[in-house]
Every structure is written in structure tokens, then in C-alpha cells.
């Protein structure tokens, strides 16, 4: 019987010697060029980190290729960032250029530092989850292909964090991203009574609905849905496979903007609805990629240097944002869920 509860490998065994020696004694860092960081310790020691975008969904062959590179240039040490980037930890300055050359030859994107778009946080989608309203890896690939120039360069006013969640469960911090794509449904669940009655626990199912839209249907030993109250969150489907929420004709992608988690200047903020719906259009989601590019560029053109997406919008006002971004403002944009009131304007001051 194998050992249980041994915990993760000890991180100190994974650190390159220069990090071990200077642990907690770093003095400053600089970005030498997009994707290349130089950290300098109080002792004068240095480490170079080369940041590379990955697809997150990787085969063991890909991981081994990364290992080959890390063996060749980093004495076998590397790390991943919280945004699915790979960081090659180069202790020998002279190996930085050769590593960059080989990365370029092999087609790895180097970047994601400073005022750039970093890799997209995203979720599983059709490759592995059972509740998605859209895909994960495919949209990410299409969007990052399109925004590639902003990953490998640092020409934006500030950093830009993009995220995608393929359903309203929103695994990942999409609700606090500069730009967030979220897979949405637009119709109430279709109830398959035989599945509900056989496989699901009715009280739990009823309790799972945030808007109390689900009522028992004792005759069928099943439930019914008050369609007017349903906002298509899919939570009932998570609890019970008989509540079919997926609908290829109506599912799609919503886009939220202006969130952040850092405390720099302004407190962390939620992303807010910009585009209520775009169609699911695999394999390359042209409507979504075009909309995201437009959102990136309207900010890049108008924001002040150093201004995050949400800071820019809060300064100019959301009414001005909708105008500049050429996004029609609809009744969908006005909150009518649980915590709506504080979003209503209570001042007679606004712009035209």
C-alpha cells in the first residue's frame, strides 16, 4: 500500500542554487526586454527569468520539450506562473541569448511581462468539463493568436489581464479581470423527467436554484421550472443531469471588462458587463476575437499611461466607455440580481 498524505514535493528541493542562496534577499528587478526579467539580490547575484506562453493544455511531449530546454540552459530548473506561463530560470547570463534563439526557432512566444497581455487564465471547456457553455482552449488559442503582438511586446498603457470561463461557475478569477469572457446559456433548462425522478435528489435540486425558480412536480416525481425567474445559471444542471441547460443554438459568450485584483492605486474591482452575448462560432470564434481586439484597442488608444482598464473607465465614466467602444447599452447592462442597487446612479452628474 502506498503512502498517503505525504503532501506536495518540498519546494526548496526545486529551487536553483542561486535562489536558495538569495532566498528572501532580492533587491530589485528590471525587465530587460519583453519576457526577460533580471532579478538582482542584495549579494549582487542575479537570476534571469525568460517567460514563455503555453497552451496550458499540454501533452507530456511538450512538457518534455520544456524540460530539454531547461536542462540545456537552466541546469534543470524552471517554474510556471499563476497565469500558465513557463519561466525558464537562467543562472548563467551567457545562456540567455542562446535560449532566446532556440525558443524563437521552436516558435515559443516570449513575453507577457510589464505593459503587455499575459497568458489567459482559462478553464476546461469541451475537452473535459460537463457543464460548459463554450470551449476553453480553442477560444484562448484564437484570441491569443490574434493578440499575439501584445504578448510579445509591451506597448500597452498598463498590464492587461484576460481570462475565460466556459460557464457561470467561473473557475478562475475571471470576475476580476481587465477583460473576461464567460460562456453563457440563454434559455431555461429542459427537464428530462425520467432522469430527474431516477437520478436526482429533488430537495437538493430545488435548493440549488439561486432564484427559487424550481418547484416540485409530485405527479412526475420530478420538478418544474418557473421560466420567468430562471436566469440560466446552470446550477441545477450541476446538481442533476436531468436539467439539460446546454443549447447549441443559444449558448454563447459574454464579455466583462474593468476588473483587477491588485491594490495598486485603487482597490480590487469586479469586471462588469460590456457585451451581453456573442455567438459560439467554433473553431475560431471570429466575433469574440474581433470584439476582444476592439476592446483592447479602444483602451490602448484612450487610457493614460499606467491606467488599468477599470481605472480608465471609472475616470471617463461608463457612459463614455460605451460610446467609445461602440457597444449598444441595453437593459441587460442594468443589474437586476441580488446586489443591484449600489450600481444605480444616484447623482445628477454624468456625461453625454
Amino acid at each position: 500500500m502506498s503512502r498517503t498524505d505525504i503532501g506536495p514535493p518540498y519546494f526548496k528541493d526545486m529551487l536553483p542554487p542561486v535562489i536558495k542562496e538569495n532566498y528572501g534577499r532580492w533587491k530589485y528587478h528590471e525587465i530587460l526586454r519583453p519576457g526577460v526579467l533580471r532579478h538582482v539580490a542584495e549579494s549582487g547575484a542575479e537570476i534571469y527569468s525568460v517567460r514563455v506562453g503555453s497552451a496550458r493544455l499540454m501533452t507530456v511531449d511538450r512538457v518534455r520539450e520544456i524540460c530539454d530546454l531547461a536542462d540545456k540552459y537552466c541546469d534543470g530548473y524552471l517554474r510556471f506562473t499563476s497565469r500558465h506561463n513557463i519561466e525558464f530560470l537562467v543562472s548563467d547570463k551567457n545562456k540567455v541569448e542562446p535560449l532566446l534563439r532556440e525558443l524563437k526557432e521552436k516558435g515559443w512566444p516570449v513575453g507577457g511581462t510589464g505593459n503587455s497581455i499575459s497568458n489567459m487564465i482559462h478553464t476546461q471547456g469541451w475537452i473535459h468539463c460537463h457543464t460548459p457553455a463554450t470551449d476553453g482552449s480553442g477560444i484562448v488559442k484564437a484570441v491569443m493568436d490574434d493578440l499575439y503582438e501584445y504578448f510579445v511586446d509591451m506597448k500597452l498603457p498598463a498590464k492587461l489581464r484576460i481570462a475565460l470561463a466556459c460557464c457561470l461557475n467561473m473557475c478562475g478569477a475571471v470576475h476580476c479581470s481587465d477583460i473576461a469572457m464567460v460562456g453563457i446559456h440563454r434559455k431555461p433548462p429542459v427537464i428530462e423527467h425520467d432522469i430527474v425522478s431516477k437520478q436526482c435528489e429533488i430537495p437538493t435540486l430545488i435548493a440549488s436554484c439561486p432564484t427559487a425558480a424550481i418547484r416540485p412536480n409530485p405527479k412526475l416525481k420530478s420538478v418544474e421550472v418557473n421560466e420567468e425567474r430562471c436566469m440560466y445559471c446552470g446550477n441545477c444542471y450541476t446538481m442533476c443531469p436531468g436539467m439539460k441547460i446546454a443549447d447549441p443554438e443559444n449558448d454563447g459568450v459574454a464579455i466583462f471588462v474593468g476588473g483587477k485584483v491588485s491594490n495598486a492605486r485603487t482597490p480590487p474591482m469586479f469586471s462588469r458587463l460590456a457585451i451581453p452575448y456573442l455567438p459560439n462560432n467554433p473553431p475560431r470564434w471570429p466575433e469574440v476575437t474581433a470584439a476582444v481586439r476592439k476592446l483592447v484597442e479602444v483602451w490602448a488608444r484612450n487610457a493614460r499611461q499606467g491606467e488599468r482598464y477599470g481605472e480608465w473607465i471609472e475616470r471617463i465614466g461608463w457612459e463614455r466607455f460605451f460610446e467609445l467602444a461602440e457597444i449598444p447599452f441595453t437593459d441587460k447592462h442594468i443589474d437586476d440580481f441580488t446586489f443591484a442597487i449600489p450600481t444605480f446612479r444616484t447623482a445628477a452628474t454624468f456625461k453625454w
Partner: protein
Amino acid sequence: MAESRTPLLDELEKGPWPSFVTDMKKLAQRKPAVQDALGQLEMSYRDKKGHWKHGGIVGVRGYGGGVIGRYSDVGDVFPNVAEFHTMRVNQPSGWFYTTEKLRQLCDIWEAYGSGLTNFHGSTGDIILLGTVTQNLQPAFDALSEAGFDLGGSGSDLRTPSACVGPARCEWACIDTLDICHDLTNTFQDELHRPMWPYKFKLKIAGCPNDCVAAVARADLSVIGTWRDSIRIDREAVREYADGGLDVERAVVNRCPTGALSWNAEKKELGLKAEECNRCMHCINMMPKALCPGVERGATLLIGGKATILQTAFLSWVIVPFMKLEPPYEELKDLLRRIWEWWDENAKTRERVGELIYRKGMREFLRAVGLPPAPQMVFRPRANPYYFWWPEELEGNGHKEQG
């Protein structure tokens, strides 16, 4: 040439970003499961819907979580992914690896699984995607042999994660990596055996830049900070100014608290330390010249979560400052008290933030023994509807009316 079986997915082989499709196709040549995973994904691309069923309960001996059961709803067409379970493997703190360790993982997943992975999942685990029920135990045994353990899933402590911290960041006010490792090991039972109302996430960021999105994604967010003054290297400030940084415009004027001032003639930065709220802006702008103070610890915040069900929450401050040094007993004790109160009071699938919202912060603070502080709120209440505890009133509450 034979016609491609995945014409839609093939479109994702174009473009400069790394293509998971290209990689999967290569692996598919020796892995029938990947061949079928591609086939099923192509079907999803055509139908615009997913083809995975609700997970059944699968697992390994001694664990209540860490494995996500996954079954195809078109298993007759794609038998090699009829069972396609996921294993969550607890990452080392800060996602540091040696290639030796990574290669071991690859070999194990080549032997017992599809060879598909995520580096990393949203919570921070290494995700090993796709294997059959009968391979789960052997895969776990091999992982354990190589020094890996499973992460969390279901209603348990989810795998804690931490920013790069003191390993490579000059701003880390706490040892994020060690705290993460220590807590993960202390709470193995909570991590591996789901027994709570719902999930509980724990994330540790070294400073208010919060590179792991702790405030948005963790039920308990630990965010490093300091209590004394930012330290300033005056010479280095001058170098930034000489190097072309418009210190007044880019740094001083954007300080949210007006704590900074600029003497353009002398190229001197002034700081009213007591006005600074430690937002990190000026430090981010001039990393060579400014750094956090020396009296370091963390701010603890509670309740962060995504929208499901009632709304999304950003975590709320519950401990403005706590020193965090090994063995972190004060933090561990607080966690235990929080879990006890939550476990006792929450409904099924109620996150701790939702419970606090339902019961009120004052109930929570009293139950876990934390004193109220003005740092906990942006502003106090505007309504007069507040409660008193019996002992706060004369004669122990309501007097009988005679």
C-alpha cells in the same frame, strides 16, 4: 492524402500561439485515448456542445477527493475516452520544478494515463487529464512513489497556492512558499477527505499586488503587507529621474493617498508614511528605489468567490495585520475556528463568505474571537438597525414591563 478527421480543430493549428491541437495530434499517434479525445472534441466543435456526462464517484484508497470522474456521452463512438478521469496533483509551492521531477510525472502519466496535462488547473494543481478507472490506483501509487500527492476536490480544503514570494520577488513581506507548504502539510486531512459544507480555498500573496488573485479567488486570502514606512533609497530615486522617469506625474500624482511629494529641484521624494495605505503603486514604479518596510506580516481577508450562487465576493478584511512566522500557529488556530463555525452553521454548498453575509459579520467575528476594527470596512453603516449583545444592556436585556 486521406481526408482529415478533424477539419474544424485543424483550423486551430494555424497562428503563432502554441497549438494544443498540433500537440494532441502528435500524441494521438501512440495514444488511442488522445485520438478519441480529439474525435470527441471535433464533435463538440461541430455540435457546439460538450459531450461529457456528470462525474461518477471514483477515487483511490484512503482519499475522498483529488480525482474527478469523467465519462463520455458518446462512449460508443469513442470507446477510448468512455472513461476519462482527471487526477489533481498537488503542485510544489510557487510552481517550481526540477526537470527530473517533471519528467517523472510525464513518465507516470505516459504509463497510466492519456499523456494530457494542464500546467496548471485554476486552483493551482497539476492536472492529469484522462485515464480509466482501473489505472487510478496504480497511477496514484506511482505518483506517491515519486513524492507526489493528490490535491483537493469536492467539499474540502482545496489545494492552497502561493505567489513566487521570497524565492524571486523583492516585495514579498511574508514567506508565501513556506506558509503554503506548511499549511498544506498541516491540513492534509482537510485537503484529502471532504467533510465540509462546500469547498474552501486558501491563497497566499506576498504583497498587495496579489499576483495569485487571492482576494478574488480564496475563501481565506493571505496578503503580505507591512506596518512601518516604505524605505526609500534617495540616490536611486534620483537615478530614475535622471533616467527619464517623470516621477511627479507617473508616481507622485498617482499616489491614491497624497502621501508622496516631489521636490523637482533637488529630485527628492517626500513621504508621509502615516498617510500611505500600502497600495504598492510607487514601489511598482521604482523597484530599485523603493521597498516595503521592515515590520512585516499579512492582512487576512475572508469570503472571496466567483458568482455562483448569490453573487461574487471579493474577500473582506478580518485581521488587518498578523505577524506570520513559523510554525504559523496563530493563523492555523484561526483557520480551525473559522472552519468549526462554518461547518456548524452553513447549509450545504454555502461558502464561508455567503454564511457571513447571511449571519452577519458581527456573529462571525464573535464566534471566531476577532475584535472589530475600522480597517475592516470602507465606511460604517448608514442605517440604525443594529443589534446589541445582552451583556451590553442594563439588566441583561429586555426588562419585563410592569
